[in-house]
């Protein structure tokens, strides 16, 4: 799923500094699952912002809302009746949400409350890690299910580099060297030969480097 972190209160307060009446809208998709933009987080953000504005002596009215998904026009349409009742709308969805909202309601101002970070999953309660870079041409089968594009700091296809030490990446002792894992897994399984050929330069045109991307499934289009 998409993982994000909430922006600092200072940054959000600055965005809404001229507003007296806002809507905060969460999303029941990924950001609910990663506990950053669901119902509870909407409540916490609303309360925090109200505390801050009361303290400043400029109280703000905040309404709370939760959409099924902010990446689907049909759910975005659900707020059409209320969306213009506010000075601005703060979206707690990933970066898609505020954009879909902006496209649907061009006269309203939308602010992102979330920094969208990566595609990943929970490795433990409260801890999420990156697993996919969305490069558009998956190669993990070549690396026994471990993706060097997203998980190697240098996206090396022929690692590990000279900075791999004790299973850790050179950039930080908190970062695992994925190439160490790839090599060890191949060795354990007696398939080191898989790694002896030089992996050729990757075609990045399927990645973000090829420009904004689109998926079309003809059988579904109307």
């Amino acid at each position, binding site marked *: 799923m998409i993982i994000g972190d909430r922006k600092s209160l200072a940054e959000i307060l600055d965005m809404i500094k001229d507003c007296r009446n806002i809507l905060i809208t969460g999303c029941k998709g990924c950001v609910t699952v990663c506990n950053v933009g669901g119902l509870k987080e909407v409540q916490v953000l609303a309360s925090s912002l109200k505390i801050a504005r*009361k303290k400043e002596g400029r109280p703000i009215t905040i309404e709370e809302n939760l959409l099924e998904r902010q990446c689907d026009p049909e759910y975005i349409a659900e707020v059409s009746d209320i969306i213009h009742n506010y000075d601005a709308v703060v979206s707690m969805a990933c970066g898609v949400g505020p954009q879909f909202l902006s496209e649907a309601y061009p006269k309203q101002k939308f602010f992102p409350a979330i920094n969208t970070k990566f595609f990943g999953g929970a490795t433990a309660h409260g801890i999420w890690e990156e697993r996919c870079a969305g490069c558009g041409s998956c190669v993990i089968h070549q690396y026994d299910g471990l993706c060097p594009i997203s998980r190697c700091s240098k996206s090396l296809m022929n690692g590990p580099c000279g900075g791999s030490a004790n299973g850790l990446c050179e950039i930080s002792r908190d970062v695992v060297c994925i190439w160490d894992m790839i090599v060890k897994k191949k060795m354990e399984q007696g398939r080191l030969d898989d790694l002896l050929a030089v992996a050729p330069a990757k075609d990045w045109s399927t990645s973000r480097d090829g420009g904004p991307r689109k998926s079309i499934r003809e059988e579904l289009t109307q």
Partner: protein
Amino acid sequence: MDTFEPQIVAFCCKYCAYAAADLAGSMRLAYPPNVKIVQLPCTGRVDIFHLLTAIEDGADGVYVAGCLEGECHFMKGNFRARKKVEYVKKTLAELGIEPERVEMYNLSSAMGPRFAEIAQEMTDRIKELGPSPVRTETV
């Protein structure tokens, strides 16, 4: 400031702190009337949102009182509550409000005097800090 009487909300677990409050009563121990108690089935039930709402609505101080560590009836409820208290402390600090206005305590049902002591301690602390900057009118 002499006349300042803080409003303090105490979220108390029914197995320990709330029972301790009862015991303090039976023992005829006095504790400040500033503390308003909210009973919880376990401090694990308390949410960040509850603590923030109390502050938002004008409480000068908020604390959570749960079982002694390792004694929670629901195993980890009091540890979870502590983490939520820490989160709210950080939020207040980010907003320029004294994080000491929020606290986590642990005690057992047999600790009536300790309950009274905590209530006194928190009341003194908040009197020292003064009224919450969020408080808009005298409640």
